[in-house]
């Protein structure tokens, strides 16, 4: 299968980006003259511009659209009103294998009771939309808009100044959005970096013009195009889960500490019974942060060991923290091993046990609000 490309692909190639496959999409990892460290620093200290058009987009429309989403996805949609977005999970329904596991995590934009927009991950977009379409009552239509919509992210302390200079809505509260049908750009105060930032939805055929406009508007603010390499180091420093690593069909929201995105009091959502039962019993493993002060970076799949060398868990994400200048990781640790903050464990880095300290993420302070 040929990888799909963003509407901004030609610009990335012209900017000397290294490209890699993300969920079937060929996307920039880093740009020539940049690199993960410089791009990461731009977001923490100034502002970065990301193309995240591999993210899916879909609409759920018709009478009862929001009620359908609320009855299926995990978070409580009644906590927000129109004009707000919400992080939520699509879990495996009860009665299926892996019930309570996570099909995908996504952002929903609530336009109104009859109009909801979804931004799932690239690789899972089709399944999320197909499941909702199957569950939809007559009159509610689920439409895949992945190819029609490009998604850009402007992230960093100078992001508001860039949006203002580009003539876009910047004065939004956290998780609020402006725009929608008939508007050129939908701007939402959200992101995946831990910094003040925005994600922008734009028609695919207007994406190039918007990209150029944002880079021009941010020139005086130190803006830099940033690839998905820096996006990963930024999100890992915040302890944000990435589907396929910290959340998956076999890793539940209870285990990943994503229970805050579950509307426990709702009468129905996919996986409710399985998740309530696991919550009651206590999950067998929990997500923790690990700081690795030595050489050798913990990487996904590496075993976490106790001081006797017994395996007590597994690294789900690991990278170099450009901010802390040390290795950091997220890991699922067995509850039976009674891990606690400050505990000294080790990660088996290619046969060499590397000492790590158990911590509670984020690894660096959040500035999203």
């Amino acid at each position, binding site marked *: 299968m040929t990888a799909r490309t963003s509407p901004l692909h030609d610009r990335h190639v012209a900017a000397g980006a*290294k490209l890699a496959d993300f969920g079937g999409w060929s996307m920039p*990892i*880093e740009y020539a003259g940049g*690199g*993960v*460290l*410089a791009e990461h620093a731009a977001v923490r200290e100034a502002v970065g511009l990301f193309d995240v058009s591999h993210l899916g987009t879909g609409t759920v429309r018709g009478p009862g659209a929001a009620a359908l989403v609320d009855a299926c996805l995990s978070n409580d949609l009644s906590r927000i009103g129109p004009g707000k977005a919400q992080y939520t999970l699509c879990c495996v329904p009860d009665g299926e294998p892996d019930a309570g596991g996570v099909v995908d995590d996504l952002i929903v934009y609530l336009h109104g009771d009859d109009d909801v927009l979804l931004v799932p991950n690239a690789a899972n977009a089709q399944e999320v939309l197909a499941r909702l379409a199957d569950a939809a009552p007559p009159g509610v239509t689920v439409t895949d808009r992945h190819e029609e919509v490009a998604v850009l992210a402007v992230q960093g302390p100078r992001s508001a100044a860039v949006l203002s200079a580009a003539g876009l809505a910047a004065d939004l509260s956290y998780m609020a959005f402006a725009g929608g049908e008939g508007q050129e750009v939908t701007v939402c105060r959200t992101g995946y970096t831990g910094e003040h930032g925005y994600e922008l939805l734009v028609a695919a055929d207007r994406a190039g013009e918007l990209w150029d406009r944002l880079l021009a508007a941010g020139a005086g603010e130190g803006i830099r195009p940033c690839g998905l*390499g820096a996006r990963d*180091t930024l999100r890992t420093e915040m302890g944000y889960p990435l589907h396929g690593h910290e959340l998956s069909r076999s890793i539940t929201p209870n285990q990943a500490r994503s229970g805050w995105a579950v509307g426990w009091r709702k009468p129905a959502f996919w996986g409710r019974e399985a998740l309530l039962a696991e919550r009651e019993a206590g999950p067998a493993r929990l997500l923790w942060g690990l700081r690795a002060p030595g*050489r*050798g*970076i913990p*990487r996904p799949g590496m075993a976490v060991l106790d001081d006797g060398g017994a395996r007590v868990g597994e690294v789900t994400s690991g*990278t*170099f923290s*450009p901010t802390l*200048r040390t290795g950091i990781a997220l890991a699922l640790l067995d509850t039976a091993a009674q891990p606690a903050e400050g505990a000294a464990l080790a990660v088996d880095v*290619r046969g060499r046990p590397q000492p790590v300290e158990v911590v509670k993420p984020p690894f660096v302070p959040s500035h999203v609000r």
Partner: protein
Amino acid sequence: MTTPDDRRYTDQHEWALVQGSGGAGTVVRVGITDHAQDALGDIVFVQLPAVGEEVGPGNPIGEVESTKSVSDVYSPVAGTVSAVNEALTDAPETVNADPYGDGWLVEITVAGDGGDPTADLLDAAAYQALVDAS
């Protein structure tokens, strides 16, 4: 991407440059190529062998780790590690900035009568062809 023609290369993306011959043998300086450092991205840790370690061709002699991934470095020749680039401990990014110069990794002393221990490795044109084909 440059490929200097004053040295030899391996298909594992190391370079080997003869430094000169002395009483103990021929000193070969080893590093990774411009192509290798570019593929790795920002290098954050470099792990090097101990001076005095005996190595054979193809033996792992260290690791170069970037934000994204880690890569083993293999010895292009047989000999004894006679120097390691200690400056990389505090400044691993030197491998990105100057892979053929200040970003060298180790020196290996090859015993023998002064023949070129890198003669069997790829020349610059052959290595460049290998990179171009990849």
